[in-house]
């Protein structure tokens, strides 16, 4: 388990490793759907609010799992979702996605 996740397990989950790992596994499953949703929103280029909510959700999840090194990217994406042009959002999303793929071993999704 990466150091950042160990810290989260201790400081946020009271060392309840079963609960932490169950949450982490469920999140990894859900990331597949999140990635699909982001791709669809970027193609449609219409629903900024939905894109912002997705980034907001990922920010909270990443913080809860202890990946505070990645969550600022999600936070930036959430803020930019309301104002940036879509190519810029695409760039930010790909950066966030790549970091998540690396952090959670999601190579099969990459």
């Amino acid at each position: 388990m990466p150091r950042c996740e160990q810290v989260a397990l201790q400081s946020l989950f009271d060392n309840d490793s079963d609960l932490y790992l169950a949450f982490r596994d469920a999140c990894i499953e859900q990331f597949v759907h999140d990635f699909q949703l982001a791709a669809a929103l970027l193609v449609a280029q219409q629903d900024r609010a939905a894109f912002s909510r997705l980034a907001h959700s990922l920010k909270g999840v990443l913080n809860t799992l202890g990946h505070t090194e990645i969550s600022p990217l999600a936070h930036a994406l959430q803020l930019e979702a309301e104002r940036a042009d879509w190519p810029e959002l695409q760039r930010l999303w790909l950066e966030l996605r790549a970091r998540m793929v690396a952090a959670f071993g999601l190579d099969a999704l990459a």
Partner: protein
Amino acid sequence: MCHLLQNTPMNYTNNSVDMSSGAYYTTLEVAKMLGMAVRSVQLMVDRGDLQAWKTPGGHRRITRDSLERWIKGSRAGVTGVAAMHGGASLRPSGRRRHSVHVPRILLIEDSAHFQGLVSTLVKQRYPAIELHVSADAIAGLVSFGHLQPDLIIVDILLPGMDGATLITGLRNHALFGNCKLVVLTALDAQQREPYAAALDGVDVVHKPRLVQELPPLIEAALGHLLANKDAAEEPAPAANGGALALAPSEPPPVKAKASKARSSKPKAKAAGKSGQQPAG
């Protein structure tokens, strides 16, 4: 000139809309029937969930057909149908009545991640509690009227309605009664400032600290119900030395597992305001 909302104009002289009093309801009447706030009903009309037209004075008139269709197609039937048929089985306080009151939580949260975490946490620590989940604000308000939960846990940023409006709507809800409210958010203290008025006096849990902060709040809100439920399900003591004691037909009641929180005193409000976690 009146207008069927959802961009379908219709003239007063057009008899395709039955204008008799039994064929339509005012927004207030529908709100009372569904146990919802007037604003929620207005939003349902604006979303096209209910069909309506506007009077020359701008008041919505909701068609009975569309209301009945909506009630049949939704889970809002208990309050709504009971009200329509005069059979609402509510206590004077507006709370639902059960022989044994099953503690009930309604979670309004659009993130599947946190829906899962709260569900796992409640299942693990409080198996006697019923947890219901709504994924958006409107569905949450409808479920609130239907379920009459003892505790509602609500995210601030939801599709369909901004958090301040939702929280205000919930607190003004005719059935809010003694229901407890906890706000769950990934926003840090600074980001919550726009919601300060709506969050005044409300317990707020910062999502990254959910596992630590939510259980004490659940216990504070529902602990008495869990205790009552356990007591109600205890076999009655036998008056004759036990010969007539009834064996419980079900397994012994599962006692809610104690939270791992070290103190039963809720600390979340202070912790939530401190914003110790990274911007969330």
